């Protein structure tokens, strides 16, 4: 098996799903590739959104994303792990985040991908500022996201 190195990127530019897929899907020891893409949605909590600005804590962000990737590897037998998160201003429909995971079998790949996005949403220092018809407002953290991350607690 190849070296289990995770790829973590925080960048302003968009990413290409086909390119990222090709990079993680080239190992014949993997029977499963699971990817997730998060996008800018047209409404949040009932109000229209025109664009989104992502702020982050440079340095800490990359370190938290690497820790999350390491934790996923401790829980499931994974080969490739890619996490790309954009920062800056994005328009409606644009891609925000990419998570890609490969494994010998699908269950590990599905679970790890969901774990990674759940943990990213509650642990990584990113903040969303939404612009809409009524001006700009900071997105409130959701209890549902906290609950989703707690689901992974090891009891």
């Amino acid at each position, binding site marked *: 098996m190849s070296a289990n190195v995770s790829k973590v990127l925080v960048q302003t530019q968009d990413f290409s799903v086909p390119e990222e897929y090709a990079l993680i899907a080239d190992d014949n020891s993997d029977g499963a590739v699971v990817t997730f893409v998060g996008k800018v949605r047209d409404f949040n909590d009932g109000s229209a959104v025109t664009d989104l600005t992502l702020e982050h804590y440079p340095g*800490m962000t990359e370190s938290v994303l690497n820790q999350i990737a390491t934790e996923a590897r401790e829980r499931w037998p994974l080969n490739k792990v890619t996490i790309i998160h954009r920062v800056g201003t994005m328009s409606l429909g644009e891609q925000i985040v990419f998570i890609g995971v490969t494994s010998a079998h699908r269950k590990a790949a599905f679970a790890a991908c969901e774990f990674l996005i759940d943990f990213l949403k509650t642990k990584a220092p990113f903040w969303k500022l939404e612009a809409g018809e009524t001006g700009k407002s900071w997105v409130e953290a959701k209890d549902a996201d906290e609950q989703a991350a707690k689901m992974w607690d090891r009891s």
Partner: protein
Amino acid sequence: MINVLFFAQVRELLGESAIQVEATAEINSAETLRAVLASKDEKWGKVLASDKLLVAVNQTISGWDTQVQDGDEVAFFPPVTGG
């Protein structure tokens, strides 16, 4: 000096993204640093009193009793909303 950073609403409301705070004997934890900053004026007191406020000491989200000393980087921010 303690390097203090602010992000998102906290940064916006305080109108500061980074300040240097002298490491006095009074400051020995994230909580005491918060108290010293909150005593600046009414605005700082109000923003830093939020029960949702999070603190990261040297880029790790930490408890309020975490030790803080000269040379540390301490960041205050609201709950995260990425993804």
